[in-house]
């Protein structure tokens, strides 16, 4: 018998979005369960470096932030959601300041901002280059003031409880003991983050396995815009460790094997000399958007103008040059870049260039939500990277995701509280039975007759995702990948879990995570193949143009309970004041409004 526990609201995921939601809920006086597979401060929000965007300076405007976000998204963002996001962002960032976040400051004590890619003006709040770390710890530490918040640390959620068409909590395994718990609530918030680990080379941590996306998908909620995956242009070779965009915001440049600033060949404007007061120019060259910079790398490699590194199996890289910034500025503004470069590639950016290449970083797509953070399943809300509102469309701008955690995490908390207050009582008998059935499924996974290795299936999935759903995609590459993923799903039915222990059975956990990743990978590759256009981060070699007539629409992948490929359909993008236009960088980057 699984343990039965009841709260008013259940939050799954203890990163930035989940913690922000928890604070909203705690203020509402409800009883809250915060279920997380790791201790909250281990969540991957911790790894974000550069900063969080919000309009606060007199030379900036809400309208510019909206336009940068919509054009950055290649017009696939919902404009009502973007407007709401931009309007709320300054309040949310100020709250976080009040909660102790050590934002970098101007001499007079106001919060300082820095430039970021794709943004018309500097509007990125930062805490040196450990912004995500400081945000996460500030949020987590701030939740410690609320005794009504009950944390279920190191509990792995394996299933959503759905009764009578309504989401009523989750079933989770307590990792410390292996005990299965039914954690019921009148409303549920999903905040489990991204799924970068479906790819082999990613900035994402080991825990980013798309668990929440998969749980919602299996409960009948569509996954939206899954084909849009962001490559960050500057990851370290080998590890994929992120070198923040702030390094370019502070003036760093990218060069190819000839020492040439190659971005000027890709419609991103003309370079200014690094010692010019005009450098770096916003929305230009190194401060172009991430999708365009990663695509430029692809073509440089095609032209043979990248550098092959013998120490890393001749992997192709370009060089990020920060030397002209000088030691003092590097240590003050981007000290973590120096620490990471020294530790992981043995290079001091004060004296040498850093080898970098594009690396899987962020999922624009996710659980379909509306502007209220509500999903199509009553009682289920979602926020952060696992969700798709959508403010990020076909390409997220750097420094919008940390702010999104706060704005939509808070919104999810407020709306889940309202829902829970007016919701009917739960059917405890029905939920208990679901919990017991799930417990039996968990036990059955620890079998003796499994033959397929977790690591082998995972490796096959990851390498086929890189082959078929990378920076540039073709129909044949995606079809081949879809076949490999289907094969891996078959193999997964016979996955081997030799460990039958209760205490910290991480092999069982890895098996669950692998199942989730296969769901996400499947939704992604089928959504990608169905979109026969190029837009933002989704680039196809045989369909090079954006096709607004057919594809100014969100793809929706629906789980197929019979085991076949997901059904893909489309939902209109919300366009309010900013009609689709040409996406220009480096020149004429100005505002176009109806």
């Amino acid at each position, binding site marked *: 018998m699984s343990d039965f526990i009841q709260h008013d609201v259940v939050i799954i995921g203890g990163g930035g979005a989940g913690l922000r939601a928890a604070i909203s809920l705690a203020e509402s006086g409800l009883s809250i369960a915060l279920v997380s597979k790791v201790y909250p401060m281990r969540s*991957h929000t911790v790894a974000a470096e550069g900063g969080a965007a919000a309009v606060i300076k007199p030379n900036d405007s809400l309208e510019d932030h909206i336009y940068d976000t919509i054009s950055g998204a290649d017009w696939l963002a919902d404009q009502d959601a973007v407007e709401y996001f931009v309007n709320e962002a300054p309040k949310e960032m100020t709250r976080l300041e*009040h909660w102790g976040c050590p934002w970098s400051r101007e001499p007079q004590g106001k919060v300082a901002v820095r430039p970021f890619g794709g943004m018309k003006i500097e509007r990125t709040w930062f805490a040196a280059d450990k912004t995500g770390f400081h945000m996460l710890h500030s949020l987590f530490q701030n939740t410690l003031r609320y005794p009504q918040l009950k944390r279920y640390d190191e509990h792995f959620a394996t299933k959503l409880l759905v009764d009578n068409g309504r989401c009523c909590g989750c079933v989770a395994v307590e990792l410390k003991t292996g005990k299965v718990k039914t954690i019921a609530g009148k409303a549920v918030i999903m905040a489990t983050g991204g799924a970068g680990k479906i790819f082999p080379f990613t900035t994402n*941590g*080991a825990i980013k396995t798309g668990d929440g996306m998969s749980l919602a998908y299996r409960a009948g909620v569509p996954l939206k815009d899954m084909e849009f995956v962001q490559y960050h242009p500057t990851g370290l070779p080998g590890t994929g460790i992120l070198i923040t965009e702030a390094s370019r915001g502070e003036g760093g440049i990218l060069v190819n094997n000839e020492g040439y600033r190659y971005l000027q060949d890709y419609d991103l404007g003309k370079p200014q000399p690094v010692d010019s007061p005009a450098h770096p120019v916003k929305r230009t060259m190194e401060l172009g958007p991430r999708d365009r910079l990663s695509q430029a790398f692809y073509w440089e490699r095609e032209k043979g103008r990248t550098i092959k590194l013998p120490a890393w199996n001749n992997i192709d890289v370009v060089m990020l040059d920060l030397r002209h910034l000088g030691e003092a500025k590097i240590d003050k503004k981007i000290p973590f870049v120096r620490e990471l470069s020294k530790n992981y590639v043995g290079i001091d950016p004060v004296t040498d260039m850093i080898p970098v290449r594009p690396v899987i970083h962020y999922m624009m797509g996710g659980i379909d939500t509306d502007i209220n953070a509500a999903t199509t399943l009553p009682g289920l809300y979602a926020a952060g990277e696992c969700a798709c509102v959508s403010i990020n469309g076909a390409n997220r701008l750097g420094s919008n995701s940390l702010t999104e955690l706060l704005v939509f995490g808070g919104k999810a908390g407020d709306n889940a509280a309202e829902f829970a207050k007016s919701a009917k009582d739960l059917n405890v008998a029905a939920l208990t039975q679901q919990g017991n059935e799930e417990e039996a499924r968990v036990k059955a996974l620890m079998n003796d007759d499994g033959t397929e290795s977790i690591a082998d299936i995972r490796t096959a999935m990851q390498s086929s995702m890189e082959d078929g759903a990378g920076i540039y995609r073709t129909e044949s590459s995606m079809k081949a990948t879809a076949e490999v993923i289907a094969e891996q799903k078959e193999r997964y039915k016979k996955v081997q879990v030799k460990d039958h222990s209760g205490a910290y*059975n991480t092999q069982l956990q890895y098996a669950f995570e692998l199942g989730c990743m296969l769901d996400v990978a499947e939704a992604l590759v089928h959504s990608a193949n169905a979109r026969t256009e190029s837009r933002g981060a989704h680039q196809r070699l045989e369909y090079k143009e954006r096709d607004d007539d057919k594809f100014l629409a969100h793809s929706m992948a629906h789980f197929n309970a019979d085991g076949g490929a997901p059904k893909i359909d489309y939902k209109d993008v919300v366009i309010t004041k900013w009609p689709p236009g040409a996406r220009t960088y480096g020149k004429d980057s100005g505002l176009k409004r109806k």
Partner: protein
Amino acid sequence: MAEEKTIKLEIFRYNPETDDEPYFDTFDVPFKEDWVVLDAINWIKDHVDGTISHRWSCRMGVCGSCGMMVNGDPKLTCAAFLKDYMPGPIRVEPLANFPVERDLIIDFDPFMEKLTKVKPYIIRKNDDVNDPTGGEYLQSPADLALFKQYSMCINCMLCYAACPVLGHEPSFMGPAAIALGHRYNLDSRDEGTYERLDIMTEHDAVWGCTFVGECSVVCPKHVDPAGAIQGAKLSAALHSMKLDIVNEMFVFPKGAGK
């Protein structure tokens, strides 16, 4: 073809459900120039023995999950390169001074209780922390600099594994928790110093520290918890002697406002 270079890892094993005593398993792992100890453990888990349990996530030294004893020293295994231990062997154990749950996993809950106890959040007399309408609280770069270093703690617990006091006094609040309490005391936006000092002057808190200083030696983020503890001791001593006026004049940035 030249024989592939390998290195030996001796890994601490303990499963509370099946083992009366812990023991060590030995594995030969391929040696790669850019591999860290964590990569080697992951390789073993994927290819040799899937039942090894350990914690890890970001593998870039910021999530704080993968602290273990490596040849007797507390290390983040994502930042401990195999090449620095050649020719080996490398002995990997769970962090010292903690109860072991299984294999390389320690019981982290006691630290969570200690952290909660020091009230690591901004306390304001008018309780306005959730109200953004007045705009940001101003804080000069100099005021930020007073506590910034102590805010860099990733809760990796290397300092707890290195602290000799914790070895025989598990209830000692410990370096990271004290440093975080002190971090909020030094924050010019905070007005909760005396609430926190009441806690930090209790038995098992700042006075437990014997100033060996190992915590600062092993800290991978250069937080200097030993320095924070000494600062906390000074303010705690003044508080105990009812000399808060001196604290307000010299120790804390907002002076009497705090």
